[in-house]
């Protein structure tokens, strides 16, 4: 059964069997506005918590999306190459950004659950 976590940087992680699917929250996509390009990471890339994993580009600006935990990219959401607007229309579903194999599951303890995240964005 998957557990969903949230970060202060407005990302969500759905963790199941040591793999996290990561995306940005609905709140984040609203702040960014219409996305026109997503720069996706290569499979196999190793990331430390805080490294830039993905760059999402709106009409106006480019924004980094950081790795919320240490791990290795196992898959990037290639659909976004042709349809970056999926991040706007389905931020927590079809608009996921990447999947990563967790290097240290204990890092998840530092993240928020949905209730805490909702309190965080007010």
């Amino acid at each position: 059964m998957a557990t969903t976590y949230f970060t202060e940087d407005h990302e969500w992680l759905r963790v199941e069997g040591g793999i996290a699917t990561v995306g940005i929250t609905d709140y984040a996509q609203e702040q960014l506005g219409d996305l026109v390009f997503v720069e996706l990471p290569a499979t196999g890339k190793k990331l430390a918590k805080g490294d830039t994993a993905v760059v999402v580009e709106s009409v106006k600006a480019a924004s980094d999306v950081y790795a919320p935990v240490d791990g290795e990219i196992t898959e990037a959401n290639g659909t976004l190459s042709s349809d970056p607007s999926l991040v706007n229309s389905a931020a927590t579903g079809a608009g996921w950004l990447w999947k990563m194999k967790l290097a240290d599951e204990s890092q998840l303890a530092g993240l928020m659950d949905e209730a805490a995240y909702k309190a965080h964005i007010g």
Partner: protein
Amino acid sequence: MTGDDTKHLPLEDIHVAAGARFGAFAGWSMPLTYPAGVMKEHLHTREHAGLFDISHMKLFEVSGPEAVAMLNRACPLDAGALEVSQSKLSFFLNEAGGILDDLIVTRLGDIRFMVVANAGNAVADEKHLRALAADFDAKVEPLDRVFLAIQGPEAWAALSRAGIETGSLLFMHGVEPRQNWFMSRSGYTGEDGFEIGLPEADARDLVAKLLGDERVLWIGLAARDSLRLEAGLCLHGQDITPETDPASAGLMWAIPKEIRATGAFIGADALRAAVERGPAQKRVGLKPDGRQPVRAGAALFDVDGNPAGHVTSGGFGPSAGHPVAMGYVATPLGKPGTRVFADVRGTRIPVDINSLPFTPHRYRKG
């Protein structure tokens, strides 16, 4: 907030009620987007009519027996040659020929002119104008107005339904249709449209009428930027600065031939020298290959990897359907179709020099 000098639009409450998201621009809290979002706002403007609150921009009335002489000194302009109601793009230049601001000058009467200046330069412009006015029998009056732009193919029809007839007004002309109103057929989108300076009470009334028309939508600063970039129009502070002169900016068309040769405007000698030398760099349109936008500040390289220039504005063009950008390249590379490369976070993105505008202008010229 204490110590916050951010300026607020007189109609801010209307924007809040419309669901605007605000951001800082040139010292102002400005609506960036409305709930429709930048993409829809942009496309709506090109298809119907977009309403913009541009009250951050400043209107100055310059008047007096020597108003013409003063403006001819302030700008590379033949103010006396303007017909009443005719508008012209011009500049304040520094002694080095660099662009302090770009402005629209409209002749309102024999000895009265309207000068519309950019928000970010309004304070400096006023100081500049007042200093000049001291040498002439002329007066500078900053006007306290709400300034609205309505842009797009249905702008005239929406204004007509709101009780404002624009029929005979042509592109780059401006009139005073009512007391303390200034209305010009101009804009910053490449579309037919109007800019209207008017008192706040009148503005509230006009906005209510316009928003009652399904063809009209509020448009934020984000779409204003993508619209003007597609239209190849410069943003002062980015595409033109005090370090760029009108020759390298490709804006010499705004300066009449006789004025180039003999005008006594500030910066004349430096500009003549720059024209004679030929500009080392040239402002061009840039079309990135693929979907990835190339943003302001990105360095440009030629095919051999030599520095070739830089990007001054960049983003995505919703009407063009691809990323669009503007920047400066070494003059020999300035021909449309020439390939250069932009450095985006360490990756070299192929970019082709593209003629401007990206989206054809649709002005009402006659």
